[in-house]
Structure formats: structure tokens, C-alpha cells
């Protein structure tokens, strides 16, 4: 049995840990087992041989890794659910061991930031109104963890209170403000509020679901102007319901991952194959924190990668381009 601590062990390589987790999940996750069998994949010796499960599986099935004869009951498990309108099939990610998610969030943030130096503000719905959101769970945990009492969920549709900003600054801590891309933009459009220079504004995505069309660069420029901080202090987080780890872009356009998470860019026509550096493809994620679901995921997002593993998210992959008549300059 793999213990959760194993995920974060520093004396083992990512590859060693991933291969062991692959074997564990291939054996004890029925959906992943059937998937691997159909691809005729048995024992593996390197990362390239591990198949990535399409992310839709979290909508179409229960993705759970549990030892045979485990005593859990699925109906008793806490779960995260993706947002969506009624009638839509939504992803469901069961949380067998919340401590793993907690550890992954804290260690992941610590990898990129001096977490204890920050007061956390979240311009998002609160935990009570959205208990199945993995993002809100994460923010709630970060807020509760901060002993200063200054971290909190902000009231929606209300501009930032300058005296509260002042109070946070006087505490000697820096401010980290989380929010969805266009939620943050609404906030500065309500009222521009100057934040202290060292503040970080953390955009958590949501570019594709909003009424406005805007490039990420334009959005970050407007946020920097609205909050009176340098562009380099507008950061992004890449996370989703189906992952228990997050990638961060600490200024600029490239995301990095914590040591127990690895991103590759896959050929949509052959997801077992990585595309060449700099080519567009589907973002593939190996997230070892998904120990009790599936750690090997093929997302529906389009991305590119540079050497060193850093990557950019270029929006959703559009499957409509894949079939039928389509005149293409370079092929026709």
C-alpha cells in the first residue's frame, strides 16, 4: 500500500514515484485498469509508457483507486464537482483523503511563495455556498490556516475596502488576492484600489467562460493598472476539479509545477506521443496527489511547452477541427 507521504518524498525521483503509483492505480482503479488493458499496456519502465486517461472520465465514470475489500462507501465520500448549468454532466472527483489535498496545496504554494508571509483574500463565492468546488475548498483552507485573522472571503459585488487593505499592510504581511479572471476585472471596474507594491493578484482562470473576449495579456495589464501594481505581480494558477495539485505562473506567461506534478504536451492524434518542444497539443498532466483517483490525465486544454517543463495554456482544444472537410493552407 502506498502511503500519502510517498507522493512528496524528496529522496525518490518523480519517475520512480510515478511508476509505482501507476502500478497501484492500474491494479486498484477499475476504470483505469480497463483502459490500460484495452491499450495493451501492462508493466511500464518509464514515464513515456504510461497512458493518460482522458479527463472526461471524471464525468462519465467514478474514478476511484481503492484497495480490494476497502471499506469505504462512495456515498460517504466528500467530492469536488465542476461548475456547470443544470442538465450538464459535471465532473466529480472523490476525495478519499482530504489530507493529501491539504498537503498538496500548502507544499505547492510554498514551492512558489513564502506562504506564511501572505494574507489571503478571495474574491469568490464563500465555502458555504459552494462546498463542492475544489478551488473554494483550497481558498477556505488557506484562509483558515492563516492565524492572523486577516485572511478572508471578500463580499462579492463590493469594491475593496481601503481601510482593510491598510490593516493588512500594517500587519507586516503581504496581500495575495485570488479571483477568477473576469471577477477580478469586475472588482477593479467597480473601483480602482491601489494595493501595496508587493501584493500578488492571483488569477485562477475562467477566461473562456465569460461574455468578454480578451487576451490574457490585456487582462493582466488592466488588472495591474486597476490595482496599481506591476504587471509582474499579476500571477495565474492552473488547476481544475480533476487535479489535486496546481501549477502556478509567478509573473509572465509560463506555468511551472511543483515537484510531484509534471506536464507534457501530447499529440491529439496519438496521445501516447509528446509533440516537439514549441508545438501545440493537448496538455497532459501527471499529478501524483491524485493518488486515490487517477494521476495520469489528458486534459481538454491546448498548450505549448518550452524546455525545463514550463508551459502555456492556450485555451480549450477545439475538437470540431478534427473531422470533415476543411481547407488547410499547409496541407491542401
Amino acid at each position, binding site marked *: 500500500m502506498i502511503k500519502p507521504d510517498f507522493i512528496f518524498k524528496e529522496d525518490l525521483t518523480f519517475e520512480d514515484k510515478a511508476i509505482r503509483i501507476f502500478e497501484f492505480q492500474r491494479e486498484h482503479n477499475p476504470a483505469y485498469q480497463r*483502459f490500460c488493458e484495452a491499450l495493451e499496456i501492462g508493466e511500464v519502465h518509464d514515464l513515456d509508457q504510461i497512458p493518460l486517461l482522458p479527463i472526461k472520465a471524471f464525468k462519465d465514470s467514478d474514478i476511484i483507486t481503492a484497495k480490494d475489500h476497502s471499506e469505504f462507501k462512495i456515498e460517504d465520500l466528500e467530492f469536488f464537482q465542476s461548475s456547470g448549468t443544470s442538465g450538464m454532466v459535471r465532473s466529480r472527483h472523490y476525495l478519499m483523503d482530504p489530507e493529501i489535498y491539504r498537503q498538496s496545496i500548502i507544499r505547492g504554494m510554498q514551492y512558489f511563495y513564502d506562504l506564511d508571509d501572505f494574507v489571503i483574500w478571495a474574491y469568490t463565492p464563500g465555502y458555504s455556498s459552494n462546498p463542492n468546488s475544489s478551488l473554494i475548498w483550497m481558498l477556505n483552507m488557506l484562509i483558515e490556516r492563516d492565524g492572523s485573522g486577516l485572511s478572508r472571503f471578500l463580499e462579492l459585488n463590493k469594491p475593496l475596502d481601503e481601510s482593510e487593505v491598510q490593516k493588512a499592510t500594517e500587519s507586516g504581511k503581504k496581500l495575495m488576492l485570488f479571483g477568477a479572471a473576469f471577477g477580478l476585472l469586475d472588482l477593479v471596474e467597480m473601483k480602482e484600489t491601489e494595493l501595496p507594491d508587493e501584493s500578488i493578484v492571483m488569477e485562477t482562470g475562467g477566461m473562456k467562460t465569460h461574455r468578454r473576449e480578451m487576451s490574457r495579456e490585456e487582462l493582466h495589464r488592466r488588472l495591474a493598472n486597476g490595482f496599481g501594481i506591476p504587471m509582474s505581480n499579476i500571477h495565474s494558477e492552473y488547476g481544475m476539479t480533476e487535479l489535486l495539485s496546481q501549477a502556478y505562473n509567478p509573473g509572465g506567461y509560463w506555468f511551472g509545477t511543483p515537484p510531484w506534478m509534471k506536464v507534457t504536451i501530447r499529440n491529439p*492524434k496519438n496521445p501516447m506521443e509528446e509533440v516537439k518542444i514549441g508545438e501545440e497539443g493537448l496538455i497532459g498532466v501527471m499529478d501524483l496527489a491524485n493518488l486515490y483517483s487517477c494521476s495520469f490525465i489528458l486534459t481538454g486544454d491546448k498548450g505549448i511547452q518550452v524546455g525545463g517543463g514550463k508551459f502555456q495554456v492556450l485555451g480549450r482544444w477545439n*475538437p*470540431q477541427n478534427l473531422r470533415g472537410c476543411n481547407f488547410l*493552407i499547409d*496541407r*491542401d
Partner: protein
Amino acid sequence: MQRITKISQTLKNWLNPKNPVLQKAIQQTVEEGLFSMEDVEFQLNVLRENVENGEIQEWIKRAGLNDRQNAKGEKVLCLHAGNLPLVGFQTALGVILSGAGYYGKLSRKDPYLLGSFLKEMQNLKLDQQIKFSTDLNAFQQLNADAVVFAGSETSVPQVKNKISKLKAALKEANYIIRTAKFSIAYLDEWNEQVKCELTEAMLRYGGKGCRSVALVVAKFELDEVKEELLSEMQEFWEKNPQHQKPQPELKYQYAYNKGIQRNQLWLEDFLIQETDEFPETNFTVNWVRGDEEKVRSLRMNFGNVVQSVYTTGAEINGLKTEPLSKAQKPPLWWKPDGVDVVRILLKSIDN
């Protein structure tokens, strides 16, 4: 309309199986592995039947084309994709019939068949320009009045940009862009004829092309007809071996279906799966149990990527339908994306 008679006769001559020009084009196409002999012959036979049935005259009547109402003097640039043999033929013929100048960028994947027809048209010395090339750069400074091509959300800006750089079309040119990707079949009965028509509609040309069925709505489950369908498909492939093999993504999809325990019919080179999702990949047909209401709702959800809805005779309220038997044997005047190319050229010029 002497011109039309000349075009019609020349087309008939070109389609003659003994025509050495056509024979050479077929040979080159097959020898270079562009398409299979069976698919090429099938397409040519459909065209032969169309012409024999007097469909050129019928098309002209339907489009309202005559000596006073035509597109003479206009320049139309056609960019032909090459996913099935002679896929651009109907557009090319339509433009020529309309009287407009035809400027065709032929696909490098299908240059011989359409090329040989266009050469015959050039030899007719009609009172209109007929030019073609496999190189888009050949149309630099053309300043066309209209551009016709099949595109998708991501390819359209790239194509428009290239055309603009080359000044191949006027800034205010009318762009006729085809976005349809696949068709839907509604089955309310199952018998030998339906089985045979459905197989042809799904498998001909490897299921490529917007008239191919990629989504089946049936009053019954896939399981109920799986065995019969399988043997019909195998029989089809014996006579028409599948020319292109799918990419590994197809096996990946099969494995995914296994993972989530989705019902499917896996044939190594083709996949039928029970889902009402958008049919994303080539060589895949999605099958869903449903009634007419389901067809209407899917047609609405998928919008302009759906070319046609076929039935085996049933009418579906509020939807235009075609017979399933016509999926791969459309009349000459069929409307890609619901648009008659001759009629739209006349209209755009009137405006």
C-alpha cells in the same frame, strides 16, 4: 443557353468510361495512393447517373439561371479541400454553369480528376475564364469577387489572411464558407435495405466528408443490431477496402470506452460508440437511442456543423430531411451547408 448544352455534352464525354483523359487521371490518382479505385469509381458513377438524369438542366432551373440572370464577368476563387475524390467538383461545375470566371486552387491530394475535367472545360473556349492550380500563389492579384471554401473556426482566419496578403480577393469579396462536418441518420426501422444504406452512408470514403453519417439516432440500441451491422460492414469492406487507416487516437477512444464501460462496436479501423456527444474524430460514428425529438435537439445543438439529416422515409416535423439512400449519391444540385452555389453567386451579384 447553348453554352449550357456545350458544358453538359463535354461533361458527358469526360465521364465516359472509355475517355482516355479520364482513365489517365484515375490511374494517376490510384497509383499515387490518393484514393482507392473503388471510391473513385463510385463517385464517377454517381456523377454519370446525375448527368444521365438531366440534373444539369434541373439545377439551372432550380437556381433560376438564364441568359439575363447569370454571373458573367464575376471572378470566383474556389479553394478545394481533398478529403474525398472530386470533392470540389460540384462547386467547380456550379461556378462554370453560373457564367462566372472560375479560379480553382486544386487540392494537392486530388489534383488529377478535377484537373482533367477543367482542362476539357478550358478546351471548350467558353466566354469565361477557367484557371486552376495547386498553388494558391498562382492567384496573386486576382481580386476575386467571391471566394468559396470549406473551413472551421480556426482555419478561416488563416485562409482569409493568406488571401488578403496575395490580394487574391477583393476586400469586400463575398466569402461562401462551408462549415458542415457530418450528417445525422434517423432510423425508425431496421431491415436489409436500411442496414445496407446505413453502411454505405457511414463507410464510403472512410466516412469522410460532410455527407457521411457520423451520428445515428435510432429507435433501438446498438446492441440489438450489432451482429447484423458488423457482418454488413465486413461485407462492404470486402468490396471496398478501407483506403486510409485511422490514427492511434481511434484505439485510444476505444480504450476510453472500455474504461468507462460504454457500449461500442470496435472494428480496429472503425468505431461505433453509444453516445450523443459531438462526433469528434474520423472513422467514428456515435449512436444514440432516441426519437424524432432527439434528432431535432441534436440538430439544434450541433448547429451548422451538421450537413444533412437522413431518414428511411419518415418526416421529421420542423426539419428538412433527405433519404438515407442519397447520402453518398446526392443530386447534382445538393446544397452544401444549405446553400446552392449557383444561386448564391447570382444573388451576391444582384446585390
